[in-house]
């Protein structure tokens, strides 16, 4: 049987987390493959429906990440993200999507190591959980 490799979508803001992922690269850090980054200008751009869409299309996990509270490039976009994603978390659990599969993280441009830490942790947990057990549009 082929090894299960969770596929995880990362919604990263342009100013902090995307830069942190770049830094992870320039610092030659290592983290599991299959973290696929979708860039936004601000984590505040992440509409909860994107997360749902990702799960619906077969993502095994989703990370929404942005600047630390207070550091938002757009003054307070990340506070709005926080509000939305807190609500979304509850909703996802209702849908039967394990809470380990969704994370909201604050990762500043200099915290490449933090991303690597989150990635490793999440990858392990989801690997243990196995593939998402909901119906997936278009099949797997």
């Amino acid at each position, binding site marked *: 049987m082929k090894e299960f490799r969770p596929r995880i979508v990362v919604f990263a803001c342009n100013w902090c987390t995307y*830069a942190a992922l*770049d*830094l992870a690269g*320039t*610092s*030659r*850090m290592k983290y599991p493959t299959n973290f696929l980054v979708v860039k936004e200008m601000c984590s505040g751009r992440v509409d909860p429906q994107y997360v749902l869409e990702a799960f619906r299309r077969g993502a095994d996990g989703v990370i929404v990440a942005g600047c630390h509270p207070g550091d938002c490039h757009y003054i307070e976009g990340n506070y709005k993200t926080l509000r939305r994603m807190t609500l979304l978390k509850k909703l996802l659990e209702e849908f039967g999507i394990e809470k380990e599969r969704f994370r909201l993280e604050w990762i500043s*441009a*200099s915290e490449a*190591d933090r991303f690597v830490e989150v990635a490793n942790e999440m990858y392990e947990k989801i690997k243990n959980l196995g593939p998402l057990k909901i119906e997936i549009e278009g099949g797997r």
Partner: protein
Amino acid sequence: MSYLPKPVLVIGGGIAGIQAALDLADQGIQVYLVEKTPSIGGKMMQLDKTFPTLDCSACILTPKMVAVARHPNIKLLTYSEVIEVTGSAGNFNVKILKKPRYVDEEKCIGCGICFNKCPSKVPDEFNLGMSQRRAIYVPFPQAVPLKATIDKEHCIYFTKQRCRVCEKVCPTKAINYEQKPETIELNVASIVVATGYQLIDPTLAAQYGYGKYQNVYISLEFERLLSSTGPTGGEIVRRSDNKHPKNIAFIQCVCSRDVKINPNCSAFCCMASVKHSILAKEHLPNVDCTIFYMDLRAFGKGYQEFYNRAMREFGVKFMRGKPAKIEEEPETKNLIITYEDTFTGLKKTMTFDMVVLAVGVKPIYPEALKLPLSEDGYVQLKNQYLDPVLTMIDGVYTVGVAAGAKDIPDSVVQSGNAAIKASILAGGAQK
């Protein structure tokens, strides 16, 4: 009447020079930015992170470097030196020596094939000799311009008339061993001196045994150790045995605040060491960090808060007292520091795996300018208050550490100050 503004010369491609050049260029002034090394970036490029925000230094600097390279108003002259300046404010005639890179800048695409193949290995200045580069090299991967340079002194072709490997492998045929030095003559309205600093020779503080004991480092070396692009790939390991240190001492005011060596305070070392101790803790969570200081000069915005964080969140120990000497344990190469804890009045010794000396700085000036200096070794200013960047020579401004030891924000502010002054001279009252 309207006329085109005259150009301005900025000497030094560190952060201060970069900022001055960008400010001027944005104001529509033609700028010549002269840098004596093959790339701009200066000392800030060698830093891993910056205090108190812990921003990655390269990440915030490289966009500025790229902006310099792309700016239509900036003519970048790297690997060049100012050799003669005549004339006066508004009308300086400057001669610049462009040293041969032996690589055609137009053709080189910075692909790096040549320096992978070059057989001659040389201590890498960018990593303070802790790693090696080749005789044909780019000082660091994000160099601007990203053009190779042949270091003539170590090139096998230049020393032994054979090899020419780089020429063979270069995909764009950019190597040119016949390149000659070039003299460029410019007429500029004003000159901004942003030539920065050099570290004072740490062996002058002989009691700390730098150069004698392997595990004694200077702060810039430690900065390279912390950096993922550094010689150890971001691992803090000891020179003697490549092992992680369990405890590190940081000694402040080495070759600073010492009337016999350098009476000036170097202004940024305290915060740099606080930053180092925090970063060391981040790299090696179990490492013990002790900072030996006399006065902890956390004076800038957010600095005191950063210092408090180091103390409270990271458990960095602060020991008030100037250590008298360092001795080495011959077998372990550990270092024994003798000091007085001035808060308890006890004389103690403590053993460390690694010691980092926060070495003081002294300014560098272009000789061609013959800038009058003050007693403290820094440039003399005409009217420190009303025109804080003006030297004794009208039309010549100094910024950054060349104008007194200072941190990055203060350097950037001075650059802006000098830029508008130079701009006024260059553009007159016209717009």
